[in-house]
């Protein structure tokens, strides 16, 4: 057994090609952009060594700070929405849904399939106010809530919320399916035993299900986190970062700095920041896992 699984030739055959490819195509560009971060301008355009100037600039950059705040707010809400909402849906499917399980599961997964451009456009039409009321405003005005009719994505106060709702909608199905699978893996007799011990409803969840689901919830959170940190496409499709800078994420800011402002060097600094944020975030989530799983 050990000999078979310790076969050096097989290991290198299995790992080395992928390792080389991955190192050149994914890791090398990251290191490369680290090198870029010490230059001002853009390769070919005013490209000069500038030391750590870019890093210093980052500290006092108001736009950067704004994007960071927007991004963090977004991560918080969307993670809770996608994972929490997904969990609720999964529980519903597990305990309440008796028939049509397959059909329902198929349907909730649909949004994952749609291209972001299409989703963005769809929601823009739902939030529409001019020239015609979109679905949301029409419903509000039909039920007499005219005071609530507003340009959802046209004002800074509601734009980020509208974007968050859209992305929760897109991701919730995915997470509910994963969590539903995890729930199915919990044997019925464990739940029955819990019931007999007098656990019901929330208590059942709190004491029986939650601990068993923890690893899966953590995985979902890592998924959701690494997706939300890199918020780019959906914001581009729905609001294009506006109004003002209300929905401009770190990635969007990096993109405009690098390609619109022609400052690839400074853009690289922001990219590195995103990368570090991503790693730190997932580490924190994973830490949470290990610490609490002992009891």
């Amino acid at each position, binding site marked *: 057994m050990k000999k078979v699984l310790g076969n050096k030739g097989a290991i290198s055959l299995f790992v080395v090609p*992928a390792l080389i490819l991955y190192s050149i*195509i994914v890791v090398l560009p990251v290191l490369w952009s680290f090198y870029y971060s010490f230059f001002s301008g853009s390769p070919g355009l005013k490209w000069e060594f500038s030391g750590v100037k870019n890093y210093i600039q980052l500290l006092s950059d108001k736009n950067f700070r704004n994007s960071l705040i927007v991004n963090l707010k977004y991560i918080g809400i969307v993670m809770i929405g996608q994972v929490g909402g997904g969990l609720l849906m999964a529980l519903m499917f597990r305990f*309440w849904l008796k028939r049509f399980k397959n059909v329902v599961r198929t349907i909730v*997964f649909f949004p994952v399939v749609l291209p972001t451009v299409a989703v963005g456009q769809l929601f823009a039409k739902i939030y529409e106010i001019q020239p015609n009321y979109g679905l949301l405003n029409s419903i509000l005005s039909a039920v007499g809530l005219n005071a609530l009719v507003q340009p959802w994505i046209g004002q800074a106060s509601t734009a980020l919320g509208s974007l968050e709702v859209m992305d929760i909608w897109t991701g919730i199905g995915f997470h509910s*399916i*994963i969590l539903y699978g995890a729930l199915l893996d919990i044997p019925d007799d464990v739940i029955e035993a819990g019931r007999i011990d007098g656990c019901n409803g929330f208590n059942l969840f709190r004491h029986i299900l939650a601990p068993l689901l923890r690893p899966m919830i953590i995985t979902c959170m890592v998924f959701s986190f690494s997706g939300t940190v890199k918020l780019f496409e959906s914001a581009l499709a729905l609001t294009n970062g506006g109004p003002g800078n209300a929905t401009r994420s770190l990635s969007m800011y990096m993109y405009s700095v*690098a390609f619109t402002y022609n400052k690839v060097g400074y853009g690289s600094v922001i990219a590195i920041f995103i990368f570090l944020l991503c790693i730190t975030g997932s580490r924190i989530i994973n830490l949470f896992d290990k610490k609490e799983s002992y009891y």
Partner: protein
Amino acid sequence: MTDKVKQNISGILIKVVILIICLVDIYPIFWMITASLKEQYEWSAFPAFALPHGLYFQNYIDAWTRGHMSTFFRNSLVYTMVSLIFIVFFSVTVGFAVTKMQWKFKKAVADYFQLGIMVPVATALIPLFQIYNKAGLYNTGWSLIISYVAFGLSLSIYLVTGYLRSFPDEIMEAAVIDGCGIYKLMYYVVLPLMKNAIVTVLVLQFFFKWNDLLFSMTFVSNTSLKTVQTGLMYFSDEFGSKNWGAIFASVSMSILPMLILYTVLNKTIIEGMTAGAVKG
């Protein structure tokens, strides 16, 4: 009695809630198809959720011919399929090597691959472009396939390792005792048992690759080599004028293969996803 009424009411309530969830999820696809049949003037004259006034199939004709959908479709299919083969191959082998096999650096290598999930893709564009340019791969299908494979590895390996951790060692031991070498073991024992995980990787990566626009726009300049998502660009101009009908016709056509794939495989996918992830 009251209990029964209560149960009935809550039963109905649950049904209503689930029905609403389904409606909310189906509606966009329905809407998109109706949208793809609208004439241009309908977009401002009537609310967006209104049904189209006629079936304006010209949008599909425009999308297919003007948007070069026929070429792009074929390209996307080829790039996606080829890269999926590599992704599956690499993720299974690497995944197996870092979980089940015994060597010194396996934990480090697994972590190293996991880092890739965190890389913001836009950063890599300029360096990658230079790499491809120097290697003579710029403006070839290979530049896309290579990027798709490399950027698909991290997530795929992550999924596969999650699944493999729960993979029972006993089966492998039995096979080894029967005289299987490592390659036979992989092919006859491990691979068939990983069907679900493989399907999951396939489908998720298919969605990601099929929807790619950034890479295909950057690394390929020849129109005859471009992909489906680029077709959408043919219907908007520099001053923000957009032919929404044709855009949604293109989108509807581009999600068709995904919908088919998903509907056919949905049971396996969902089993694979749940099984693959849970034991992670």
